[in-house]
């Protein structure tokens, strides 16, 4: 009954005209940036973050979360019409979505994508509502050693954000730790890595790093080419966007599969929606009566990954809000947003800020309905964004990045740092260093160092405090296990290869 009361309280917050407006702005912007290839939700949230400082945090988080899950809806549009994923989680949607579009079924593919997103997105929010409060209660017993172990566990998730090279991911993470450590040490007031510059005494603002590495890095990379891709035509009218009854029947299991897989993968920090969509697509193909048709334009090949990447959003909010662990670049930026607003995601978040937590949950229900209503009839209109020339879009992104950074501190030094981090983001993209681990290191580095030093103060320098407490020992063990998992996989692959060559 108590839980029901909180949900109602959340709806009372989310249904105020002011919050409804911000929710709509968030999902609308999210859909648009999801459609635009080359500009992801992480970059957009980073760019808009400074503009939310004047808003109340509940409305701000409702809007930014709207951008996050709205982009998942929009991301499928370019996958289906261009064979170019609007954001990384929509890669799998290209496999069957683009093939359906080539067969003249773009409308049905877009419709199935929107319906799957709605069902799974709503499922993800229900899951968030049910799982987050008990998990937060459990985490209330944590002290500094447990927090340090938790941060280690969070950093170990770098394994899942690693991409092709684990070494590069770890290096990126350590650079993130280094950048986080710049400035004045809070315990001793000693200055670290400031190069004698007074501008660096306060450290480097998260907004500068996030906008530089994500937004400018991406745009600088996109500046390499001038040509634009060919858009397949979108059928006009709601009727042509609705899938047939047979399509919906074929997708029954895919809706459920996408919802469950997406949520569970989302709860695991670091796994992310791209992995969720690949796994649900794999399961769908494995249990299908017509696996040979996958990749040639089957509707369930669109429904499963689209559902998974939307349900993942609700799942990803669980570790973010209850433990303060971001599982992806976008949730890392949301974590930083909370910190900048003076809130601290973690076990006390739900207890201390029930209005914000339940308001956010309720707004996600409402946002999903808005997205369904927006996406079905307005897809042809949204697709027109793809015709916006790059020479109009990119100067605008550069401009808003400069304004965003300058508005935080009023410092031109920060704008210079933005340009430098933009170059770093571009170099990382070119050299295939993943940027999410850098952000992960940057966001968790400060808390991790603080928790470690507080733990060692508690034990008067005795490191065994970290492993003598059951919860911290378990989490540290898990972190080591996660970090070593790729080595075991590699050793096993070598063993299988050696056996194959020997036989």
């Amino acid at each position, binding site marked *: 009954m108590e839980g029901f009361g909180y949900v109602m309280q959340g709806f009372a917050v989310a249904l105020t005209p002011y919050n409804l407006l911000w929710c709509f702005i968030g999902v609308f912007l999210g859909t648009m940036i999801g459609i635009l290839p080359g500009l992801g939700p992480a970059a957009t949230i980073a760019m808009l973050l400074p503009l939310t400082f004047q808003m109340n945090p509940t409305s701000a988080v409702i809007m930014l979360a709207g951008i996050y899950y709205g982009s998942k809806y929009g991301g499928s549009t370019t996958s289906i019409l261009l064979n170019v994923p609007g954001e990384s989680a929509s890669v799998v949607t290209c496999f069957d979505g683009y093939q359906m579009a080539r067969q003249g079924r773009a409308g049905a593919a877009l419709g199935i994508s929107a319906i799957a997103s709605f069902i799974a997105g709503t499922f993800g929010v229900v899951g968030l509502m049910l799982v987050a409060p008990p998990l937060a209660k459990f985490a209330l017993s944590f002290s500094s050693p447990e927090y340090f172990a938790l941060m280690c566990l969070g950093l170990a998730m770098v394994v899942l954000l690693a991409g092709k090279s684990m070494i590069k991911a770890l290096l990126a993470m350590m650079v993130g730790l280094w950048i986080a450590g710049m400035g004045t040490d809070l315990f001793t007031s000693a200055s670290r890595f400031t190069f004698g510059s007074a501008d660096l005494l306060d450290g480097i603002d998260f907004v500068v790093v996030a906008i530089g590495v994500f937004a400018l890095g991406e745009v600088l990379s996109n500046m390499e080419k001038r040509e634009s891709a060919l858009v397949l035509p979108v059928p006009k009218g709601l009727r042509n966007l609705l899938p047939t009854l047979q399509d919906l029947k074929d997708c029954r299991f895919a809706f459920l599969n996408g919802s469950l897989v997406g949520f569970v993968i989302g709860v695991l920090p670091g796994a992310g929606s791209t992995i969720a969509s690949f796994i649900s697509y794999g399961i769908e193909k494995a249990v299908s009566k017509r696996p040979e048709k996958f990749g040639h334009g089957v509707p369930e090949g669109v429904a499963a990954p689209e559902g998974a990447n939307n349900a993942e959003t609700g799942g990803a909010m669980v570790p973010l809000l209850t433990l303060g662990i971001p599982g992806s670049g976008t949730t890392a930026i949301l974590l930083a947003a909370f910190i900048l607003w003076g809130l601290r995601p973690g076990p006390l978040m739900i207890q201390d800020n029930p209005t914000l937590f339940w308001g956010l949950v309720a707004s996600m229900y409402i946002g999903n309905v808005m997205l369904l209503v927006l996406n079905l009839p307005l897809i042809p209109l949204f697709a027109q964004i793809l015709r916006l020339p790059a020479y109009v879009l*990119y100067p605008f992104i550069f401009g808003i990045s400069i304004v965003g950074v300058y508005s935080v501190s009023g410092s031109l030094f920060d704008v210079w740092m933005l340009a430098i981090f933009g170059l770093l983001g571009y170099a990382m993209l070119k050299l295939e260093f993943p940027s999410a681990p850098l952000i992960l290191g940057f966001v968790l580095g400060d808390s991790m160092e603080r928790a470690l030093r507080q733990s060692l103060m508690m034990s008067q320098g005795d490191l065994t405090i970290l492993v003598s407490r059951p919860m911290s020992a378990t989490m540290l063990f898990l972190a080591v296990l996660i970090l070593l998992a790729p080595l075991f996989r590699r050793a096993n692959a070598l063993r299988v290869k050696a056996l194959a060559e020997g036989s």
Partner: protein
Amino acid sequence: MRLLRNGEFLSGAVLAALGVFIIIEARQLEYLGPDGPGPGFFPLWYGIGLLGLSVLLMAIHARQAPVPASRGWAGTGRTFATWAALAACVALLKVLGFIVAFALFAFFLVRFLYRESFGKAFAVAAGGAVGFYLLFDVALNVTLPAGVLGF
């Protein structure tokens, strides 16, 4: 010379140098104080990690052939030109202010990098600058960098 063309090796070398720098700096800070670890404790350990991993990266890629240009270094010139223009724009912010510096930057991108007509470049530059002014300065009350002319 072969190694210098190897992006992985070169990035490993740069990161190894960063690792050495972090270790040297961390050693000048207090490692353990009376109240526990000092400001040099944490950086020393990630500095060592950074150095070790970057040496490993260099060792793995030292024997490999340089990454072929086909992996996509062809458009790098356009990107560096864009970045140089951005740097010039940032340098001009103090003198000309955001409105003018951004207009010049946008004009350069559209006219010279996208090779669009003078008219289109002017429209994007002027429209963008005015749009930013109206949206941020007037509507949202966000202060834009001002130049010697006061705007």
